[in-house]
């Protein structure tokens, strides 16, 4: 693992490096370098398996964090590649040419976070949400409770209980706290 | 003229009996199947309720003229066979209109309903219907061969194609039934019946979890009611045909009911214990064992 990272650092400008587990590490790279780094990992280092692509909304930093997780079946190690992109104008280079299934992840991210991947197949089509015209729901500035209350006719009289408290009250009504 | 009206009334009565018996028979079969599965199953009157409910549906839709005519053809097919089939041997009234045609007419009249149903379902435009029909027709082609050979064997044995005469020849005791005088043909015929009644393993046509219910996918309300009516009539009539051909016919209603029940039960019995064939499997199956038996049946009587 170290060797890989060392090798990686010597070739790319890797800014952040976290060794999560002995066989799992995260590196952070610049947006521009990300795709070439991934290509390098796939073709040279043997990270042939693409595990997932996901995003985190760092609304405070005004950033989206994209995480590509790759797996090397031979070395039995995982490598996460983090890319921080601007939240105002979220675009990222598409990686669908490396693995076909990336396109699906990118489509999901486009829908849920509004991160654009120009050139990715069918990226503009709706994926899970059919006919969504609000801000992308996984962004943290989207208030889902408010949206649900406005949209879905909440029924009055809804309450909630802590099951332990509730059962205690019910079973031992006399017992005072 | 009077004769004809009386004849018609008797025929309607017969139809009524057959319809109800068909539903009762269907219900009891389902009861039996349920018991095999350790269930109580439907109430015995369930088919009547279903039928009433279907006829009492408030709305219906129509895909076009053929969609409308399909069930008419279908029921016409079932009732037509009923009309041309002598039910009770020795009774002029219960022999219906069998003087207008013989066994061949009945064999070919089966297609009347099938064709209409197929066209009606086709007009519905649903691909699953068409898939179901193609399967049904495919299977039917090979189902018919053993039956044809059995009929030829019977014609050779009794030297007639008239059902009444075939039944007449079987009178006078159990030993005279075709079942015993020509067991090979009977086997061929009964194997063919399995395919004709479309219980498992030959029920790919309406396989509900594959092509939702097959041909009648789009049928509902009164259309479906008509189809169910036909189903009840047709099952009895098919069983009655085989009863006449192979099991000595019936001289009274009690005998009729027992025999048709048992004949119908045969296919249910097979169905309960067998899984389903794919279509090419069933086609090939009918071209193997039942065909061989049918050929044997004819060879024995050459």
């Amino acid at each position, binding site marked *: 693992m170290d060797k890989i990272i060392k090798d990686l650092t010597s070739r790319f400008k890797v800014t952040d490096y976290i060794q999560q587990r002995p066989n799992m590490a995260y590196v952070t790279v610049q947006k521009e370098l990300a795709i070439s780094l991934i290509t390098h990992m796939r073709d040279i280092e043997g990270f042939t398996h693409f595990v997932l692509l996901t995003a985190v909304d760092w609304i405070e930093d005004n950033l989206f964090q994209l995480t590509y997780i790759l797996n090397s079946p031979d070395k039995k190690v995982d490598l996460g590649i983090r890319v921080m992109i601007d939240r105002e104008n979220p675009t990222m280079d598409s990686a669908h040419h490396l693995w076909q299934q990336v396109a699906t992840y990118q489509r999901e991210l486009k829908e849920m976070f509004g991160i654009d991947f120009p050139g990715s197949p069918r990226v503009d089509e709706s994926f899970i949400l059919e006919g969504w015209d609000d801000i992308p729901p996984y962004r943290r500035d989207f208030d889902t409770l408010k949206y649900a209350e406005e949209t879905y006719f909440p029924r009055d009289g809804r309450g909630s209980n802590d099951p332990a408290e509730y059962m205690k009250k019910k079973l031992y009504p006399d017992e005072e706290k | 003229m009077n004769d004809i009206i009386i004849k018609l009334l008797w025929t309607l009565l017969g139809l009524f009996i057959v319809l109800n018996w068909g539903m009762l028979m269907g219900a009891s079969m389902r009861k039996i199947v349920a018991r095999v599965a350790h269930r109580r199953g439907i109430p015995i009157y369930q088919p009547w309720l279903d039928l009433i409910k279907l006829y009492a549906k408030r709305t219906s839709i*129509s895909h076009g003229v053929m969609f409308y005519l399909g069930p008419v053809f279908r029921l016409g097919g079932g009732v037509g066979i009923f009309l041309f089939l002598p039910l009770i041997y020795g009774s002029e009234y219960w022999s219906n209109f069998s003087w207008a045609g013989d066994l061949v007419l009945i064999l070919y009249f089966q*297609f009347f309903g099938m064709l209409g149903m197929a066209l009606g379902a086709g007009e519905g435009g649903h*691909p699953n219907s068409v898939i179901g029909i193609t399967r049904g027709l495919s299977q039917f082609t090979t189902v018919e061969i053993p039956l044809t050979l059995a009929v030829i064997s019977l014609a050779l044995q009794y030297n007639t194609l008239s059902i009444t005469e075939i039944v007449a020849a079987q009178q006078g005791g159990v030993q005279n039934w075709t079942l015993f005088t020509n067991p090979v043909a009977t086997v061929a015929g009964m194997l063919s019946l399995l395919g004709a009644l479309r219980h498992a393993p030959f029920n790919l046509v309406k396989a509900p979890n594959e092509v939702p219910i097959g041909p009648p996918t789009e049928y509902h309300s*009164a259309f479906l009611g008509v189809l169910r009516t036909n189903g009840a009539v047709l099952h009895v009539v098919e069983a009655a045909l085989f009863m006449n051909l192979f099991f000595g016919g019936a001289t009274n209603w009690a005998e009729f009911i027992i025999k048709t029940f048992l004949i119908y039960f045969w296919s249910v019995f097979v169905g309960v214990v067998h899984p389903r064939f794919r279509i090419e499997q069933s086609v090939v199956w009918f071209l193997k064992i039942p065909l061989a038996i049918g050929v044997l049946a004819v060879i024995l009587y050459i």
Partner: protein
Amino acid sequence: MVGPIYIIAIALGLAFLLGFFKKLNANIAQTFMMAGVGAMSFISVQWLFGHLAGMVTETVTYTAGFKPPFSISLQMGAMEAGVTSMINIFGFLGGVYLWRKLKEMGLNAIIIYMVTLMGLNVIVLTRDLFNLFVFLEVSTIGIVGLILLERGVNTISSGFKYLVAGGVISSFMLIGTIMIYKYAGSLYINDIITSNIAATKGGMVALFLLLIAVILELKPFPANGWALDVYESANSGISAFLSAGFATAMLFVLYKLMPMFPIEWQAMVAVVGGITFIGANLLGIRQKNAQRLLGYSSAGQMGLLTAVIGLSSYLNEQFIFILVTILLGHYLAKAGLFWLAGIVKEKEINSWSLLRREPLLVVLFGVFILTLLGMPPFPSFFGKWELIMKLAAGGQTTWILAILIGSFLEAVYLFKWFGYVLKGENEGLPVLQIKPEKIISPVVFATVSVMAGYYAGSLLGETNFAFYIPLMFIAAIGLLEFLPAFVKNTFAIAGMGYLAYTTLPGLFETDLLRFIFMGIFILGGILTLFAGYYYKGKRQGFYPSALIMFAGLAGIIQAETLLQFFFSWELMTIGSYFLIIRGKRSMTHGFSYMLFSLAGAYAILAAFGMVDAQVGNMLSALGGVTSHATLIFALLAIGFMTKTATLGLHIWLPGAHAEAESDVSPMVSAILLKAGVFGLLLTFFGMGAESAGNSSILYVLGWLGAITALVGNLAASFQEDAKRLLAYSSIGQLGYILFAYAMATQLGWIGGFLYVINHFAFKAILFLTIGAVVLRVKTHNMYEMGGLIKRMPLAFIAALIGIIALSGVPPLSGFAGKWFFYNAVILKGWYFQGAVVFFAGVIAFLYSYRILQTVFLGQLKDEHRHVKEIPLTFLIPIYILVIGIMIFSMYTHWVLEPITQYLTAYFPSDPVHWDGAAATTSLGYWNGTWVMYIIGIMFVLILGWLLWLNAKATKVKQFNMVFSGERPFTPETTHMAHNMYAGYNKALGFITAPGITTFWNKVAEFVTDAAGFIRRIYTGNGQTYAFHIVAYIVIIYFMIF
């Protein structure tokens, strides 16, 4: 009478004179030449007419005032007059054709032309052997000189090869001549004949050398490579000269010299001819170059004629007739075709499609091809007919076989060529330039061909004229080609109506069988022609072809003699060929149709020959056949089964019917196929279906019919093309019919008749309907249609009724057929065949449903949302037939009862009893009318009930259906149509594997490969050719001695 010597005098004199005036204007010189040739023609023609009219007798002219053997004598008998007329007329017309070329080449060419012509005349006329040799050489030199009209290197080298080969041949001829002189002491042919020259060995050798030289001049296979190169490369006018003029003269030489040779040698001559006929035609199959192909054909025809001369002892009094008609056919056709080749100027036969730009040329081409092949109404047809008849009378089965095989091979390449002309791609080909002088000669020859055909026919003493009335009517329609289609259509229908008016009532009185078939032919013809009103424009070529076919069909019915029948049969084949090949992409289908038809026709011809030999030429005498009855029966059956497209002989049908035009498909399917059935019936009726030898054949036919039905229906179920589906269905239905008739019982035949009528009606309905739908939607593929019931309800109803009648569902008439089948099968005892047929019958449901579902039901496509109902001109005939089928279903007994009575004459046992509408057999009973009533009433009651319950059903549109909570996206993806019976295909598709097509393809491949292999002996090297000649002589020598 002007003496024949003047022919020579004129030619020589003119040639000399012209030679003096070197500076003479070419135009004037040529006018002189034409005048001279005209005069020569006149002399010979006047002799010919003199002989024909009986005014003159055989005349011998002596030169130099001595009697032979001391001088040369010229004999002008009828044959000589005829042949010189042919040569001179050809010379004249050829001169016209070569006008420009000769003028270009100047005086010398004109002189050579005249001298060559003169040489040929002398060859024919002279009775002196050496004189013959001299003028043969003169002609050869002349021809070789004329070859130089073209200056290409190939032409020149081929001319040289010709010279080398000719030199070798003439050497042998010279030796032969001189040896004959030594042994016979005379060169006068008549003296040689009377002298006993063959007694000595040396005399035999002498005769042999002479004979072989003459034969070699006729270009026998395989020692004929030298001639083929000339045919290919020379100017087409010269090739025509070589083929029509020179070969004709040489053939006459052989004819003239034949009496000199020992009678045993005739067989050798015949064999040589036969081998040439087959060999040359076999090699012709691989040819792509038009002129070379004609060369092969020319060699082949000469082979045939040589064989005829060799076989003269079998032909007796008809020898001359046969020789002359076939020779005439060859002469007219070959000259005409070579001339056309000169007009077209395209070497490759597949470029000849540009001929299509000029309809007149196509007509000419057709006339010549048909003349060459011996098709009616051209003279060689009668020649071939008589040849076969006489050979059969002589018991020469092998020869019949050989001649038919040769003719068939010839037909293969000629019709391939014809196909290119009619249907080949003619885009991007150069413009056709027709110079007036080039077209005159072919036109004249084509006209002569037609007239000669009539004359030859009348010579055979048939009441021939009746068969020519329809042809004249057709010719009249043909002349009206410039009129719009609807006018011609009206004329055609009127003609058919007149035919019906004159024939049907009479037939009804006399012969029910013929009445039924005539009714089908004429009624069907009128109805299908009616659909033709749909077509705009001129529809060139359609009406003559269609009417030729109908004339042939009517002729078959009316024929009384074998010749009339065969004449009409061939006529019908030709007409239908033209009809079929009119369709799109139908070149190959028309080709295979023609080949199968011809093969069938030849089988019929062979059988007729045997019949004629035994009991004379009346059709009704068929029953009197005693020897070879089984063989004749089998041959006739096979012949007629090519038309009914029985399995094994069916591969032409699907493509031919599917690609034909919308109103032609019903003509060829519903109507034309019945001609084969009629033929079979004639055979069965005539020859006694149940006689001992035939019953085993019938047994085979029964199985064949059953399997045909099965395979045809199964294959129909797997088609994607609507018309192809119907075509396969026709194969299946004709299988039923064959099966029914093969049973040869009364019940079977009633069923058969029922099927014939029924198939006619429903197949006409279906083909018209589907054809009209195809016209509207412009596609054949069923999966591209769908949902058309919404746009074309009337078409759907018609198709539905057609399908119900087809599938045999009660109450329509199809069921009656099934009922009779069941009874017949069981009574006959053909249980397993019967089971196969019923299996096939059930399979019919698969395709019946398929065509209704995928075309009319299911999902309507975007582009068909606005299509109109099928045209009224189609609807009217369709609905006439629909009404007909309903009435027929309701009152089947109206038709079947008379048929039953009619058949009682043949099957006295009478197993069917009719009581009104009720039919009873010993097995079962059936009452068509009551079944109809009962079902009708029941249907109405149920419908009423449903309507009462369900009147308020909301009408929805095509996407309003259960789609698992989704909705359909496009009609294409929602229409379940493509590969509809996938599961069934998986289970039983192997039955329809195209084994038979593969088989025939392999046969064709083998034949063409063989041809390709054999033709490698023609290396192109002149020496090899010379060696061939020497080797040929040696081989034949050792074969004889």
